[in-house]
């Protein structure tokens, strides 16, 4: 990329005297990495909210590595799957550690990504010229959710089986062809052996797809650089520092801070975020009394359940994620950072609080007062997006008045 072949002069670097230079003249990988990893100009005023991207990257790598080692012992067959997990936990040397890391790692990965998205929302990282960067992030989030769901099916416990049944049935709301699609997805007339095998295949391959899209995410990031807490585009070179050693060191501190509670959960509370029902082998004849997804899906699960019409519920749930794609155009304000947006700042915190409420109510049985709370929370969730164009206008008017 870059130079026109006609402009290239003869290359005289000596392979023995200067092997790195010789390589770089032929494949500019060293200068590429220097420009994009070590020396990349990064705003010097980034705060701690900006460490979650690096943490999420580490989380992804941990999931891929532990996953590869688990794949060496796991059996994707309805007769063997549940026992192969027990085999990993009991027979394989250190298998319990690797599996606990993978299990807890999924939860922590979501925590990091939610924090990363929250930071993007607060500091307006989705705004021009970073709409595509944001959109790629939403795509990563979607694939990540799919991967987590597929992975949760693999241990073939009761929650695996019924989670798979419920989630795949969501697609039956598609008019006319919905039921055929579900049968096609299952490879049978219920969740069964073909389903497990294909879910395993996709669970294995999707993380590498995520990794590739993360590279594109970083590519888009490096076109216009990071935002920063002030929300202003920094036009002075003195406002930048090289990524290394400043942000490698800072990110490393964040990563270690992340790994401490992670390790605590891995060693002392590995099953804490799971469900005991999943320690019972899958039984197609009995649904567990109280079926809930993993905590990181609960807000979206609450949206699904809050609406008593099947089609609308499914639509609202998918819509709650897809609406993030149009966020850059819903928010009309040219001001990026919530620091300088009094109205938006309040809305942001209401949105975050409401998201937590949705998660909480999603874990409760769908009855009584919980249904009401869930419905209010759904209105607030979509209300945030619906009010954004108006808020942007009001805010600007108010700020001008203030002047």
């Amino acid at each position: 990329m870059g130079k026109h072949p006609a402009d290239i002069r003869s290359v005289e670097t000596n392979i023995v005297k200067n092997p790195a230079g010789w390589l770089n003249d032929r494949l500019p990988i060293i200068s590429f990495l220097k420009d994009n990893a070590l020396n990349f100009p990064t705003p010097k005023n980034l705060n701690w909210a900006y460490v979650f991207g690096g943490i999420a990257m580490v989380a992804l790598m941990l999931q891929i590595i532990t996953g590869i080692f688990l794949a060496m012992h796991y059996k994707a067959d309805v007769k063997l799957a549940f026992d192969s997990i027990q085999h990993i936990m009991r027979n394989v040397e250190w298998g319990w550690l690797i599996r606990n890391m993978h299990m807890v790692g999924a939860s922590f990965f979501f925590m990091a990504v939610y924090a990363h998205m929250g930071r993007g929302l607060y500091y307006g990282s989705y705004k021009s010229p970073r709409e595509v960067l944001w959109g790629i992030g939403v795509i990563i989030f979607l694939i990540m959710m799919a991967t987590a769901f597929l992975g949760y099916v693999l241990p073939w416990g009761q929650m695996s089986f019924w989670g798979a049944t419920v989630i795949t049935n969501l697609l039956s709301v598609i008019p006319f062809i919905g039921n055929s699609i579900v049968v096609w997805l299952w490879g049978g007339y219920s969740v069964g052996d073909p389903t497990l095998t294909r879910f395993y295949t996709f669970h294995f391959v999707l993380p590498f797809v995520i990794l590739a899209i993360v590279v594109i995410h970083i590519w888009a990031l490096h076109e216009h650089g990071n935002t920063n807490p002030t929300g202003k585009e920094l036009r002075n070179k003195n406002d930048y520092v090289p990524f290394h050693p400043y942000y490698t060191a800072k990110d490393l501190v964040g990563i270690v801070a992340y790994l401490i509670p992670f390790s605590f959960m891995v060693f002392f509370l590995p099953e804490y975020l799971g469900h005991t029902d999943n320690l019972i082998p899958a039984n197609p004849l009995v649904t567990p009394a109280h079926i809930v997804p993993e905590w990181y899906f609960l807000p979206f699960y609450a949206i699904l359940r809050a609406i008593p019409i099947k089609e609308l519920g499914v639509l609202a749930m998918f819509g709650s994620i897809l609406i993030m794609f149009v966020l850059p155009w819903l928010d009309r304000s040219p001001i990026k950072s919530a620091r300088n947006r009094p109205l938006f700042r309040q809305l942001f915190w209401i949105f975050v609080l409401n998201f937590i409420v949705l998660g909480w109510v999603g874990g409760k049985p769908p009855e009584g007062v919980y249904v009401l709370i869930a419905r209010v929370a759904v209105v607030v969730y979509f209300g945030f997006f619906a009010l954004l164009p108006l808020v942007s206008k009001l805010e600007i008017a108010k700020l001008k008045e203030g002047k």
Partner: protein
Amino acid sequence: MSSNKKSPKVEIEDQIHDAPEGDVDAERRKFLITSTAAFGAAGAACVAWPFIKSMNPSRDVQAQATLDVPLGEIAEGTMKTVLWQGRPVFVWHRNAAQIASAKAADATSTMDPQPDADRVQKPEWLVLVGICTHLGCVPIQAGDTGWRCPCHGSMYDASGRVTHGPAGQNLPVPPYKFVDANTIRIG
């Protein structure tokens, strides 16, 4: 990525090189970098260890370490192949002629010399790991005189000693003991 834009990258490199030397405690910086790297490497090694170990034989595989073979069902002059730790083991009930053939070959087995008496606990029972010492194929028994490997033509005599290359070592004798007169325990 795109070269048509003037990026602040070059400036940044200048900044690094232009860092005021007087403000830098080089010793301290060197110590911090070295100790961080050392702790990081030690941590990485500790994390890598369980992953490497996880590929070792798991406990259920280790539990297959021993195998009891009843000898009553192996008639004199015939051989039985059993599976021990996933490997074929030849248990040959040699008759007098076969024992004599093996003893007679003591003198001619020069590639990896070992007397037949050292390779058996009881002369009528020869126990061998049936894997060619060349590249791991299973040799085929060739009458009373020994084995021939179908892959690359190595030959073994009636004591499992190599008589013809490319293999260079005798068929190994696995650890085994007579639990009673009619049973051996391999492993």
